């Protein structure tokens, strides 16, 4: 693996984790009685940008390297399900996340202006969904890497 590809992989993971940390912070602050809107908006933006950059760096690694050099090793090795289930699920579930993050960002702006308990519940739900799917995608990434022998 070239240095550039290794860097792409590292950035994909680090940016994804920053995005997850940010969306977690968004959620934890939104559910408070008096959310600190400055922090919430900044966290929601960080999450969206983190997910988008993680998408781009991951896409480069996946398209250029994973399919030709990593996938065949996993599929022909002891743990083919690491690709066939976990990688396939991860790469497709990941696609849902940036759009949820956009909705979460809009929701946070709306909540800042409008006091509406029903909107707060719905916004919390979409932020939580983004977080949960992101965590599952990250865990799947560990399983996929473990399948490379």
């Amino acid at each position, binding site marked *: 693996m070239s240095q550039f590809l290794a860097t792409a992989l590292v950035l994909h993971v680090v940016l994804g984790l920053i995005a*997850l*940390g940010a969306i977690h912070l968004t959620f934890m602050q939104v559910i408070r009685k008096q959310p600190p809107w400055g922090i919430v908006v900044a966290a929601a933006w960080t999450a969206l940008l983190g997910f988008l950059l993680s998408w781009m760096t991951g896409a480069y690694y996946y398209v250029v390297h994973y399919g030709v050099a990593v996938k065949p090793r996993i599929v022909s090795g002891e743990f083919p399900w690491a690709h066939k289930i976990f990688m396939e699920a991860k790469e497709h579930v990941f696609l849902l996340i940036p759009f949820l993050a956009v909705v979460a960002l809009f929701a946070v702006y709306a909540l800042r202006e409008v006091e509406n308990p029903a909107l707060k519940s719905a916004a919390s739900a979409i932020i939580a969904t983004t977080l949960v799917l992101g965590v599952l995608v990250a865990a799947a990434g560990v399983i996929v890497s473990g399948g490379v022998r």
Partner: protein
Amino acid sequence: MDWYTFLIITHIIGTVLGVGGATFAEVHLIRALRDGTMSRDENSIMQATYAILRVGFFLLILSGFGFFVLARLEEHTGLLYSIKLWAKLGIVGIIGVNAVLLQLRWIPLLWGSAIAFTSWYAALILGALGRGEYSFFWIYAVYIAAIIIVYFVLRAIHARYIPHKH
């Protein structure tokens, strides 16, 4: 300094902040509630403690995944399927979920405190344990037993030091 050493240092800092934060969260909570109410200053101390805890948690996650990426890049991926590791990851997940439940007030404070306190120490201990044969069942059996014991200890401490409303 190589990447592995850097990650070890970061992971230790995260553990110190997290385990220390979880410990002091309980100490500060008991001290704050001793007079029956939480003052503004006491609440500020609690918020600062939780903030440090969150920083520790984030450093642990970041450095933990750093180890995974390093293992992948150096082709030592066997550890990624270790039972001890996944038991620890499960407990880290429980720490995160518990924090959410506590924030939402969907879990009683004492149970939430017992789970948080036990989970942080359990993650520390699992991280410190050497390689060997581990059983997922026994790790979680001991973990759950520890949570229950810590709950009753915290309950006794709260009963002793915190006045109850009648």
